[in-house]
């Protein structure tokens, strides 16, 4: 009987890939799913960038107001010294212009400003935890991607081994067929077995390519996720540093601001008022500074990162397109590529070289 010397068990072998089966479509869907996590984080960063602009604007306005108070009280804003400055400053306040009875309390104004400043600093600090949470989420994501990479690499190895076994079988069937009469029953039986082997080779060589491609793309995804983590971590550390400093200064300055407000209302201790405003301005400046610096940070890093991600998108799409195109090409070419890859893998693992055609 034909093939008696051949071991055809390999055709009955149950090849165990881990995870769900793979196809071009399922790979595309899985990568898309993994990317969506990254996209959410990038969107969060974009939102943060916009929020930063708002915070910077409002902080700048508040610092401007404080500086103006300071300059007027200092007497540097007008030629007439303190009293002229105070009068002019009060004249700018809504509702006071033509009222002879009284003026609005400086203490009250300063306290309102203090509350706004405290809220702004807390808003900024709130982002630190949001960023830290995002950072942790992405570490979890990296763990998940790593598991995928290991799974894809293992499956690639399984596919490569099986492709080589099938190729060897096809070659041996070719050799066997040389020894028997063409068109005989035995030859027809051998041809049938070879067709089965070729069909399996086609399927597993496609798997080999897909698992290899998946491994590479998950690795790219991981690299970009790492970049995101780094961006978020650096940003969180910067904001945390500034807001902690600003918060401590505000806590320490509250009694001084209130005392100086009271003193200003009693029209005394004007230089102290200036000094107090400087303390508050300094605190606000620290917050403004962090916003400015994070703006630069965003401009430098986020845009680059987004560009990288866009490039990554293009690369991913191209790989997927190639795969689709590739599947349309002739079977033999794909098989040759798969075999070459499997041989290379085996050689890298230091295994015995697989038998090649003509061995």
């Amino acid at each position, binding site marked *: 009987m034909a093939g008696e010397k051949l071991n055809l068990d390999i055709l009955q072998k149950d090849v165990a890939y881990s995870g769900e089966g793979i196809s071009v479509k399922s790979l595309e869907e899985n990568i898309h799913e993994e990317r969506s996590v990254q996209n959410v984080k990038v969107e969060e960063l974009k939102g943060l960038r916009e929020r930063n602009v708002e915070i910077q604007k409002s902080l700048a306005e508040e610092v401007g107001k404080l500086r103006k108070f300071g300059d007027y009280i200092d007497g540097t804003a007008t030629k007439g010294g303190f009293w002229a400055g105070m009068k002019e400053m009060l004249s700018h306040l809504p*509702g006071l212009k033509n009222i002879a*009875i009284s003026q609005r309390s400086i203490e009250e104004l300063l306290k309102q400003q203090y*509350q706004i400043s405290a809220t702004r600093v807390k808003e900024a600090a709130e982002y630190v*935890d949001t960023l830290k949470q995002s950072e942790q989420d992405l570490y979890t994501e990296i763990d998940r991607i790593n598991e995928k990479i290991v799974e894809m690499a293992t499956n690639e190895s399984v596919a490569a081994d099986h492709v080589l076994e099938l190729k060897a079988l096809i070659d041996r069937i070719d050799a066997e067929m040389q020894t028997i009469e063409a068109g005989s029953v035995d030859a027809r039986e051998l041809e049938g077995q070879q067709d089965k082997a070729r069909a399996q080779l086609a399927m597993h060589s496609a798997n080999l390519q897909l698992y290899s491609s998946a491994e590479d793309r998950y690795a790219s995804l991981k690299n970009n996720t790492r970049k995101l983590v780094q961006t978020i971590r650096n940003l969180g550390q910067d904001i945390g540093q500034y807001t902690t400093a600003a918060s401590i200064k505000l806590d320490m300055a*509250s*009694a001084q601001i209130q005392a100086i407000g009271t003193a200003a209302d009693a029209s005394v201790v004007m230089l102290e008022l200036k000094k107090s405003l400087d303390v508050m301005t300094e605190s606000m400046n620290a917050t403004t500074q962090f916003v400015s610096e994070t703006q630069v940070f965003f401009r430098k890093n986020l845009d680059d990162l987004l560009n990288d991600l866009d490039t990554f998108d293009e690369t991913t799409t191209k790989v997927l397109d190639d795969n689709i195109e590739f599947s349309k090409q002739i079977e033999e070419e794909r098989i040759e590529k798969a075999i070459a890859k499997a041989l290379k893998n085996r050689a890298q693992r230091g295994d015995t070289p697989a038998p090649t055609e003509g061995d």
Partner: protein
Amino acid sequence: MALVALHTQHLLEPVSSTYLGMLGRAIRAARLNKTFPERRQLDGTLRALGAQAHHGLYDGVYLDSRSGLPNMASFTRPLADRGVGERALDGYEDQAALDAKRDEAEVFARMAAKRRYFELLQTLTLAPVDEHRVLLRRHEPESSRASFRVELTKLDGSGAYLRVVIDLTQTASVWSHKLVDLDTKGEVASGTEALRGMVYRFASYDAETLFIRLHELEGVHVERVQRGILGPMRFSIPHEGEHVTVLESRTDATEGAWSAACQTQGDSPLMMASFATDVAALDVREEKSNDPLAPLLSDGIRDVERARYVTLRERYPFRVYKDRKFVVTPSLVDGVRQACVAVGCKNLVYPLRG
């Protein structure tokens, strides 16, 4: 323990929670009426400042080292957190998800605590640092007269938390300098910036001073000015072999009673909370200060000023009455009562329980 900034001391946990608990009980025991800042708001703020509310997000509270009350930074903290929390909560995972992850990273444990804290804040009514209100009492369009109640709650520069309530009538003929605006229907009143500024700045002074200042304005008839003041508070809380106290408390008529109680204190915390009222009104029968910590303004007038002061007072037919009640730990009740009697006052002294 030392001051950390001007008139500022930092009370750390667990002393902070002991202090907040005692202060909250003292305020409840004082049975404050509407002359004083609203008790419910104070309860809310004191609760929000405690570790049971913020779950360790803060290490304590800042106090005014003269009044023994939370200072502006502390009053501002829950107010700012409530606003920030309201906006932040939408972005938080639910409580169960955050609790489940609390051991994964420090940030999740903090966010789990913050979620609870922010949600609690949304349910609390908090004490404002400052709050103005103007209420219309009576409107007589035919005589162009309107009566108002002006209310100001203020965390004062002295560290005290107080409320000023003014009843006044304004006549329309001089509304070029009007203090209160009415809406077009004559139903809703709002104070002008001028009134707001004046009341705000005079809130720290005696009710008598504000009464005269407002009454001097043409077309304004003042019926009553009353102030309700929380503080000063004294406490002594044993902690790790020391007693944590108010660092810049002023010496006053109760000093002896306080010192004596401190000497025999042992391991139990002490508190002496006081709540003062100061009324200048047309319907006060007798001019008197029953406040052992605050004499009448007239008692401090120098001889050279007296004639002018008497002339001024004769122009306005009001009288002044000052009073103060105390809430103290039981061991202080007798001592404080005797100290009040010693300076000619007879005050309510409630024991602080719990």
